[in-house]
């Protein structure tokens, strides 16, 4: 299988770039995504108002004629030297296959950084989760918790709160800007959290059975381990303002790059800019 362009990731950036490629008349495009549906990791939050532009994007993208391989994950990436084709290895429900591409756009997004990355002291019970886990549990018919503490620090956590408030009345929000999460308690399931007021140093012990917290992002560049595509110390792909990586015909856009942001707010913009360079 050979394509003009392979887009890794069908999230905000990938779909934006795909639409732009279609507008420019490029026909040989393949999209590959780890998830079962297009939309990317932020899809669960899109029913919130703050994701209205993304919802619109998804509607437009529904008419895209491009092939899209879902539940398919790139596990190996071998850039072609001197204008040769790039080779990608993809893991899918049918097994592993390889594809070749003239150009590759990496738009693989990012995951939410959990409490462990921030050395939050305390125990490690069930019930400590990021918004992404909470939303996935709800999707499966589970309730994440009965008394939830949510740390608000951006549009993802704000949207999660809006959606959770529909499910439960027992949600307490703390703004990250005012409160620092200082400890987690509970043996098997969360029993409470401790928060410190950044201004007054007041310590607040809150009883709860669930903590929803994430801060920062984990760029999904796991498949680039060992590949010659340059990444920064946070594993984000190093790109210039036009999405160029250090290698020819390999581009990257969105929250998997060093220019992306934790809340995926500038992903569309970055992808549009990058798409202009592609063709």
């Amino acid at each position, binding site marked *: 299988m050979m394509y003009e362009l392979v887009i890794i990731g069908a999230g905000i950036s990938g779909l934006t770039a795909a639409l732009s490629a279609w507008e420019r008349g490029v026909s040989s495009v393949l999209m590959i995504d780890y998830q079962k549906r297009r939309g990317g990791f932020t899809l669960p939050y899109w029913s919130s108002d703050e994701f209205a532009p993304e919802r619109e994007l998804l509607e437009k993208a529904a008419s895209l004629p491009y092939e899209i391989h879902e539940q*398919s*994950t790139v596990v190996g990436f071998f850039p072609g030297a001197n204008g040769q084709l790039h080779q990608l290895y993809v893991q899918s*429900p049918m097994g592993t296959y390889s594809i070749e591409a003239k150009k590759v756009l990496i738009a693989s997004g990012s995951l939410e950084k959990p409490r462990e990355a921030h050395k939050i002291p305390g125990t490690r019970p*069930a019930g400590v989760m990021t918004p992404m886990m909470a939303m996935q549990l*709800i999707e499966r*018919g589970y309730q994440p918790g*009965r008394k939830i503490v949510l740390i608000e620090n951006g549009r993802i956590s704000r949207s999660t709160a809006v959606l959770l408030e529909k499910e439960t009345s027992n949600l307490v929000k703390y703004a990250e800007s005012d409160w620092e999460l200082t400890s987690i308690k509970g043996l098997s399931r969360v029993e409470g959290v401790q928060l410190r007021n950044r201004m007054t140093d007041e310590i607040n012990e809150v009883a709860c059975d669930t903590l929803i917290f994430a801060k920062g992002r984990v760029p999904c560049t796991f498949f680039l381990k060992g590949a010659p595509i340059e990444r920064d110390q946070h594993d984000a792909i190093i790109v210039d303002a036009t999405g160029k990586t250090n290698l020819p015909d390999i581009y990257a856009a969105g929250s998997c790059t060093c220019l992306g942001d934790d809340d995926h707010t500038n992903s569309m913009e970055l992808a549009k800019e990058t798409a202009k360079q592609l063709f």
Partner: protein
Amino acid sequence: MQNHKYDVVVIGGGVVGTAILRALSFYQLKLLLIEKQPDVCEGTSKANSGIVHTGFDAKPGTVEAECLRRSRSLWPILVENLRIPFIPCGAVMVATNEEEKQIIETTYVPNAKANDVDVHWMSAEEILEMNPAVTAEVTGGLAVPGEAICDPFWATRAFGEIAVLNGAEVVLGQGVSHIETVSNGEDLRLTLENGETVTTRYAVNAAGLWSDEIARMVGDESFSISPRKGQFILTEEAISISSIILPVPTKTSKGVLVSPVVFGGFLLGPTAEDQEDKWDRSTSQAGMESVLAGCEKLVPDSRQFSTIRQFAGVRAVCSEGDFVIRPSAVQPRMIHAAGIRSTGLSASPGIAELVAATLQKAGLELQANEQAQHALPDLFSEEQETGEIICLCRSITRSEIVNSLKRPLTPQTIDGVKRRTGATLGECQGNCCIPKIIDVMAETYPEHTGKQPLKGVRNSYLAVAQGEKQA
């Protein structure tokens, strides 16, 4: 389970209990292991440094030194038969001044000799060549080439699995709550928390931190166990060390170490904090600080390392100061394998041998089981295709998860799947893939669907109630 009488019931499914079950499964015996938690290796055996110690620093003449000595020759066979991830990386005890060098020469060299463990002095240049990240202040050190690292969970699970293949039974998620003597003192009757009873000729007490409570159930007050916590920091930074880097212990503390981990990455720690609560596995700011302060002296950049996870384990410190491996004086049909404090992973194969010999002395006939298997087959599922990726951070496929669910010791928790596959161990710590693993578990065992999925220990419900499916 309750219909027949067992020859031996092992109480506790840590590395010690499963090693004993394995050793006994090579004889014609009716065996049962009872573990309180939903999986094996949920106690101290899951949270330790993962080092297979030689015993170079063990006190000569102790039961501990003897078990470590026996284990040294057993590990290579176990690693091969059970394919335990194992790296013979060696250790260096690093001296940074003349005083520490003196301590090594006067204490550790003769001690290693008494235990018959090979050690030699290493120059600062040699140490730095192999471990460039070590402090430039190093003046030399003691090399212990026989020290190694392994996956403690793999070892525990594999010990249990080979025993199950050889006919042993395992009950998970039920603790022993009561023990009485029956049949005129010939048998023991164990009552489980759910009220079921089990009759056995012998019981082995391998309940780790709780082994004193099991001893009390037969009226034995001869030893008690107190908890001592050790906190760790796990990092995936590429630290330029190839061996386990040990400090020279002081009078009050063994100190913290920096060690490679078999799956990649490095461990910094552990602390040694006496506490009251056997269950307290929390980490603290102070603990993290003391780990970093200690490691910094060995590897100066320690403070700069990003961390993927922190955790704590709790040692079983025994009032007797040594391993307690003997029949109970009150009830000789109970054999203790208790007080296994800091080297239980390394010593487990030797402990198992010693327990088997103790049981034999106590009257148990050990007839070899000619059919017994020694090596663990690799595959337990017929899955042909690898399937899609479930754990994105670690590239773990659906079939790897399904495979783990079809092994002789079936995981019932997310942590069980995690330890068998490596899934959820990456940067996102499972927040992306845990729900997908729940799906695979439900598809593989539809009879479990609707049950609350557990994270790890009892009652660690991942979601509190099953609500309505959202539109």
